[in-house]
C-alpha cells in the first residue's frame, strides 16, 4: 500500500491541494532506446518537461515521434525487453515524503504508483479491456489493488466511478462484458477505471483516435469536466491538432524523439517558432478552407459513371432451433446517388452507418438488392463474365495500407496483378505499365522489386493507388484511404488523388469519417445515418448550410485546430446510437429526401 487508505479514500478526496505549488511530475533528460535488428536506436532523446497540478499538457507529433514511448516510460511499461530508459529522471511529487524518481523505482514499488498516483488510458477501447472479465470485476479489482476497502465498498465506488463518467444504469452495467458495449462506452469505462482512485496524473494516449467524431467530442468534454472536479493533471498524447487546440493548456511538439517546440496552446497555434510546427499546422485539414473547386464542365456534360438506385444490403442473422433467419442487419436501406466523371462524391457518417457496405456493394463484394449501373450498364442484367468486365471500371483503395498488401509478394507484382487477372497486356507491356504507374504515383520504377514491409505507410498507400489505377478505372472507391496516415503524409496523398483526377478524369467515391478531409476533397457530400442518406448536396450546401440535425451535429463535433475558437460546451448525447439490427418484418422507417433548393436534398421523416 503506497499510502494509508484513510486519508485518501476514493470519493472523499479533497479538491486539488493547491497548497503544494510546483510541478506534480518533472522529467529531465529522459532518453529511451529500443534494441532492434539494426542495433540500439534512441526513440526519445534528452526530453525534459514538467507538469503542473491541474494542467493539461498535450504531447503532439506524428507516428514515430516518441510520444507514446514517453508515456510508457513514465509508467515503466516500456515493451520488455527491447526498450529501456538509458538516462534521465522522472520525478513524481510525493506530498509529505519528498520526490520519487520513477525511472529508478523497482517493479514492486512502481506497482503502487501505477493506477493509484498515475493512471493511463489507451487508444484502443475495443482491445484495452479484458474480454472475459465483467466491467464490474475489472473496475473493482483496480480499486481493491490500492485500498483496504471491502468488496462491497469497492463495488459502491465502482458504481460511483461509472456514474461519474455518465454511464447510464451504472449498477446493471457492472455485470456486462466489454463486447456488449460500444467503443465510446468502453472508453468511458477505461476513464472510470483510471479516475476511480483520483490519481494525481492521468496519461491519455490517443484516447479518442479510435472513436467516432461525435463520441470524441463527448469523451473530451468528459475529461475536461472530471479534471475540473478533481484537479487531475493530464498528459494528453495525440496526433490530432484539433484535439490539441481543444484541450491543451501547454503543448509540446515532438519529432524523431526530440522536443521541437514547447509553449502555451495559444502561442503554438498563433506564433509557431519551429519550421516543423509550422509545416505540421499547415498540413492539418480544416473545415472552411476547401479550395473552392469549381464543378468542371465535363462533369455536367457527360452522363454518370455510376448510378446507384434504391440500394439495399441486409445481412441475415440465424437463430432458433433450426437456425432460421430471425433477425436482419439493415446495413444499407434504400440509398440512391450518382457520380459523374471528374467528380468526387464523399460518403460520410459514423461507424456502422453503412458507408463501407455501400462501397462494397458497388465493388461487387457483397450481395445487394436494387440497381447499380456502371458506365450505363445495369449489373443486375449481366452474366458473370460481362459483370467482371464492367467491374474493371471500379477499383478500391482501402484504409489500412499495412494489411491490404500481401507481405509475401513484390510490390511490382502486386500492382501488375489486376492486369494479370483480367488478362490484359503481355508480360513486357505489363512491367512497362507498372513502371509508369510507379512513377505516376511518386515512387520510382526500381522499387518494384521490393516487398511491402520495406515501405512507409504513405508509400504503401501510393502502391495501393497504383494498383487501383492499373486497370484505368472510371471510378475509384477510396474507403477511409487516408485515415491511417499522418497529417503531412495525408495532405500529400490527397494532392496525388486530386492530380490523378485532373489527369485521367476519374470519379471518386470518397468514404471518410473525417469531415475536414471530406470538405477538402469533395464536390458533393452525402451524409449517412443508420443505413440511409439523411442529407446530400454540393460541398458548400452541406458544410455552409447543413439542414439535417445529424449533419449539424457531425460538423459541430469536429475539433477546430485553433485554441482561440474553442467550442462552447458540446451537446452531450449520453446514449448509444440505435442498432440497425431488427426482427424480421420490422423494416426501418424509410426517409424521404426533399429538395430544399438547387439539388440540396434533406431527409424529412
Amino acid at each position: 500500500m503506497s499510502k494509508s487508505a484513510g486519508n485518501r479514500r476514493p470519493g472523499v478526496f479533497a479538491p486539488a491541494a493547491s497548497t503544494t505549488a510546483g510541478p506534480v511530475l518533472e522529467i529531465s533528460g529522459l532518453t529511451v532506446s529500443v534494441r532492434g535488428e539494426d542495433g540500439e536506436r534512441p526513440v526519445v532523446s534528452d526530453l525534459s518537461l514538467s507538469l503542473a497540478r491541474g494542467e493539461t499538457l498535450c504531447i503532439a507529433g506524428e507516428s514515430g515521434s516518441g510520444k507514446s514511448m514517453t508515456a510508457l516510460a513514465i509508467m515503466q511499461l516500456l515493451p520488455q525487453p527491447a526498450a529501456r530508459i538509458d538516462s534521465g529522471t522522472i520525478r513524481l511529487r510525493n506530498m509529505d515524503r519528498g520526490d520519487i524518481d520513477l525511472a529508478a523505482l523497482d517493479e514492486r514499488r512502481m506497482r503502487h504508483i501505477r493506477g493509484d498516483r498515475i493512471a493511463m488510458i489507451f487508444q484502443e477501447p475495443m482491445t484495452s479491456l479484458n474480454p472475459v472479465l465483467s466491467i464490474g470485476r475489472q473496475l473493482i479489482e483496480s480499486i481493491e489493488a490500492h485500498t483496504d476497502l471491502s468488496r462491497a465498498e469497492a463495488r459502491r465506488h465502482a458504481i460511483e466511478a461509472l456514474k461519474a463518467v455518465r454511464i447510464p444504469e451504472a449498477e446493471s452495467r457492472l455485470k456486462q462484458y466489454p463486447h456488449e458495449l460500444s467503443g465510446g462506452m468502453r472508453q468511458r469505462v477505461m476513464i472510470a477505471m483510471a479516475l476511480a482512485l483520483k490519481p494525481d496524473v492521468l496519461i491519455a494516449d490517443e484516447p479518442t483516435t479510435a472513436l467516432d467524431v461525435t463520441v470524441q467530442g463527448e469523451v473530451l468534454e468528459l475529461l475536461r469536466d472530471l479534471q475540473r472536479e478533481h484537479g487531475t493533471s493530464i498528459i494528453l498524447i495525440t496526433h490530432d491538432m484539433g484535439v490539441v487546440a481543444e484541450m491543451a493548456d501547454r503543448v509540446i511538439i515532438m519529432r524523431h524523439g526530440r522536443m521541437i517546440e514547447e509553449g502555451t496552446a495559444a502561442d503554438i497555434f498563433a506564433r509557431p517558432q519551429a519550421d516543423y510546427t509550422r509545416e505540421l499546422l499547415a498540413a492539418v485539414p480544416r473545415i472552411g478552407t476547401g479550395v473552392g473547386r469549381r464543378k468542371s464542365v465535363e462533369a455536367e456534360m457527360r452522363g454518370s459513371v455510376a448510378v446507384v438506385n434504391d440500394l439495399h444490403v441486409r445481412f441475415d442473422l440465424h437463430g432458433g432451433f433450426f437456425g432460421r433467419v430471425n433477425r436482419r442487419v439493415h446495413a444499407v436501406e434504400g440509398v440512391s446517388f450518382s457520380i459523374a466523371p471528374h467528380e468526387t462524391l464523399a460518403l460520410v457518417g459514423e461507424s456502422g452507418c453503412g458507408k463501407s457496405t455501400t462501397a462494397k456493394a458497388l465493388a461487387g463484394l457483397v450481395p445487394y438488392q436494387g440497381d447499380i449501373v456502371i458506365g450505363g450498364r445495369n449489373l443486375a442484367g449481366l452474366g458473370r463474365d460481362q459483370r467482371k468486365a464492367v467491374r474493371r471500371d471500379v477499383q478500391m483503395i482501402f484504409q489500412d495500407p499495412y494489411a491490404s498488401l500481401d507481405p509475401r509478394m513484390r510490390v511490382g507484382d502486386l500492382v501488375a496483378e489486376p492486369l494479370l487477372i483480367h488478362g490484359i497486356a503481355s508480360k513486357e507491356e505489363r512491367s512497362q505499365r507498372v513502371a509508369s504507374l510507379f512513377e505516376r504515383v511518386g515512387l520510382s520504377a526500381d522499387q518494384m522489386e521490393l516487398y511491402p514491409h520495406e515501405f512507409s505507410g504513405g508509400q504503401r498507400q501510393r502502391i495501393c493507388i497504383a494498383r487501383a489505377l492499373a486497370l484505368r478505372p472510371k471510378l475509384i472507391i477510396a474507403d477511409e484511404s487516408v485515415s491511417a496516415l499522418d497529417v503531412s503524409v495525408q495532405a500529400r496523398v490527397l494532392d496525388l488523388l486530386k492530380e490523378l483526377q485532373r489527369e485521367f478524369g476519374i470519379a471518386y467515391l470518397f468514404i471518410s469519417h473525417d469531415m475536414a478531409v471530406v470538405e477538402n476533397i469533395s464536390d458533393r457530400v452525402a451524409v449517412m445515418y443508420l443505413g440511409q442518406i439523411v442529407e446530400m448536396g454540393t460541398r458548400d450546401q452541406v458544410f455552409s448550410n447543413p439542414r439535417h440535425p445529424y449533419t449539424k451535429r457531425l460538423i459541430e463535433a469536429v475539433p477546430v485546430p485553433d485554441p482561440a475558437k474553442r467550442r462552447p460546451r458540446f451537446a452531450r448525447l449520453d446514449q448509444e446510437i440505435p442498432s440497425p439490427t431488427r426482427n424480421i418484418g420490422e423494416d426501418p422507417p424509410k426517409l424521404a429526401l426533399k429538395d430544399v433548393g438547387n439539388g440540396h436534398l434533406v431527409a424529412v421523416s
Partner: protein
Amino acid sequence: MIAYLGRRVIQSVLILLGVSLITFALLYLLPADPVRQIAGRSATPETVESIRRQLGLDQPFVIQYWHYLVSLLSGDLGRSYIQRSEVTELIVSRLPASLLLMVGAILCELAIGLTMGLLAAVRRGTATDQALMVASFVGVSAPQFVVGLLLLYVFAVRLGWFPIGGYGSWRHLVLPSLTMGILGAGWYARMMRSSMIDVLRQDYMRTARAKGLARGAIIFRHALPNAILPVIAMIGIDIGIFMGGIVVVESVFGWPGIGQLAWQAIQRVDIPIIMGVTLVSAFAIVLGNLLADTVAPFIDPRIKLR
C-alpha cells in the same frame, strides 16, 4: 441454449450412425472369416455353413446392417462370437476401468502440460523456456509403448514404488495415467505456450499492468482464462486420441478396460465386440467435443451457443 443442445444431439446421433455404417462395412469387407475362427480348423463345411446361417452372416450386407441397427436401438449390441456373452455386459463391466484411466490421464496431461506451457510463456526466451520445449518435444514424439515400458522399468521394477501391472488401488493407476498423459502434456505445453504468448501481447494485459495489479493477478486472472480457451477445445479431440492409446497402454499394463477387450476381439475377428467398442469410443469422442463446446461460453462470454 436448449435449441443448440437439441441440434447438437441430433448431429451426434447422425455421426454415430455414420461411424456404425463405416465400421460395419469395413468389417464386412475384411478377408478374415469370423465363422472359421469360431468353428475351428477341423470343422466340416456343413458345420461352417450352419454357424454362418445361425449368426445371420449369410444374409446380404444391407439386411445384416439393418438387423444390427434394429437391435442397437433397443440397447442390444449383440453377442460375442467367442466369449458367448452379451457385448453390452462385457463393455459395461470394463468401462469403469477405462474411464478411470482416462480421467487420470487427462488430469496428468493438464497438470503437466498447462504448467509447462504457462511457465515457458512467462519465461519466454530463457533457458527454462528452451528446456521445457525440448521436454515437450520428447513427450510428443516418444511412442507410448516405449514410455510405458520405460516407466515400468524405472518406477516399478527398479524403484518398486508402483505395482508392475493390474488394477485395484490408486498406485495401479499412476503409471498408466502418466504414460497416456505424457503424450498429451507435450501437445498442451506447446499450445498453452503459444496461446499464452499471444495473450500476453494483448492491449488488455498492458491495461492490467497500468492498473498496478500484482503479477499473480495479471497472469492468473487476466491472462490464463483467455489463454486456456483453445486448449479446452482440444480436450474434446483428445478423447479420440485416448481411445487409440488405451488399446496399447491397457495391454502394456494389463489394465482390464475396453482397450484390452478390443485388442483381444481384433485378434479373433469378434465382430460384435469390435463394433461395440468402436461405437462406445465414438460416443465418448462426440460427448467430449460437446462438453468442450458447452464449457467454452462459461469462460469466454463472447461465445454464444446457437
